[in-house]
């Protein structure tokens, strides 16, 4: 066992890990941050998406020791400091961007990464950026709408399909 140190949502944390311990296992099993989900465990679905040093990654496909010392942001770090929902989270709620909610943490983390790179994306750009995030409930339409709304664009004209 080796000690791994990470800065998670702005707090210094450490955990005992093996070589094979995945970043998502540290987050969920060692640090109790169960907001990050494991859907496929094969790098396909994006439910486990977190930010590592500001970039989105699939935490089921990253070894904890390989990102030792990194700054990690999870869904637990997305709310405003006073605990209210962030703009993206509020938009998902407002526009029904979730049903069962299993994919939602990964969707929100991916949406945040997109809006940081591209603050006013087109609908096509949103859809392309979500390529690695699978949702088995919503049909994506309201997720796309929520992200466009979070970017400050008018979505009144986008009908629910």
């Amino acid at each position, binding site marked *: 066992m080796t000690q791994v140190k990470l800065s998670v949502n702005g707090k210094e944390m450490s955990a005992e890990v093996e070589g094979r311990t995945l970043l998502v296992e540290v987050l969920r099993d060692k640090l109790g941050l169960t907001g990050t989900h494991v859907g496929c465990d094969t790098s396909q679905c*994006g439910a486990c998406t977190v930010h590592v040093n500001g970039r989105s990654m*699939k935490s089921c496909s990253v070894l904890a020791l390989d990102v030792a010392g990194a700054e990690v942001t999870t869904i637990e770090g997305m709310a405003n400091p006073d605990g209210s929902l962030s703009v993206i989270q509020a938009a998902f709620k407002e526009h029904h961007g979730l049903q069962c909610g299993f994919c939602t943490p990964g969707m929100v983390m*991916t949406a945040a990464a997109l809006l940081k790179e591209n603050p006013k994306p087109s609908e096509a750009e949103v859809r392309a950026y979500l390529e690695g995030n699978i949702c088995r409930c919503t049909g994506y339409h309201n997720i796309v709408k929520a992200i466009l709304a979070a970017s400050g664009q008018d979505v009144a004209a986008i009908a629910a399909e």
Partner: protein
Amino acid sequence: MYNFDFTRPSSIKDAVAAIGAGGQALSGGQTLIPTMKARLAMPETLVSLTGIQEMKGICTNDAGQICIGAATTHAEVAREVAKSYPALSDLAGHIGDPAVRNRGTIGGSLANNDPSACYPSAVLGSGAIVKTNAREIAADDFFQGMFTTALEEGEIITEVKFPVPQKANYQKFVQPASRFALVGVFVAKFADGVRVAVTGASGEGVFRWTEAEAALSKDFSAAALDGVAAPSADGMISDLHGTGAYRAHLVKVMTARAVAAA
């Protein structure tokens, strides 16, 4: 996943020593970690290349070649060469999805030489040079069939050097479930001729379509391909996503699109 020892050296020299002592290289892990979860690979020691600064980043050398460190991510390549080599940037920017691009690396992709991977077509199509800890290998010698390369046991890719063509384009027919190329064609026009490299199609992995190269070197237009027969379907990959004949047909279609878009 079976357990293993993990090291993260900070120099090429230390990495080569650790791999020589029986370790396996780990770069972005976007192929290797899923493979290890499936227990199709069981290394005793993993040697991470992600902490080696001399293997990261992009520059242009005196010969005008774009030099990309082997541990550079797809996302960085997409951002950094957008102006200097747009076709390469576009290819890198359409590998998998954003999270895969933030982790996966050019060195890992080339060492793996998946028959449906994108980068091998850019490297072969550009006539790039694969630099390792020991030598420089021309693209024409590097790829040796599905999942097979010229790399010796314990040899690692450290850099890839791309000559920049006058015009180039990559056309990828996406296999929507895996997001790899069902067929991908990289076309590059240089002063001394045209190179056409095809991925996703052949059971032997990436290959050069020499008949198309000859026609396009005389006349760089989609119409120049009218008189060229599609490559033979023999030896093309046939699976539930498409037959060999379908892939052979796509090779010609995607080549014409790449020429038109270049």
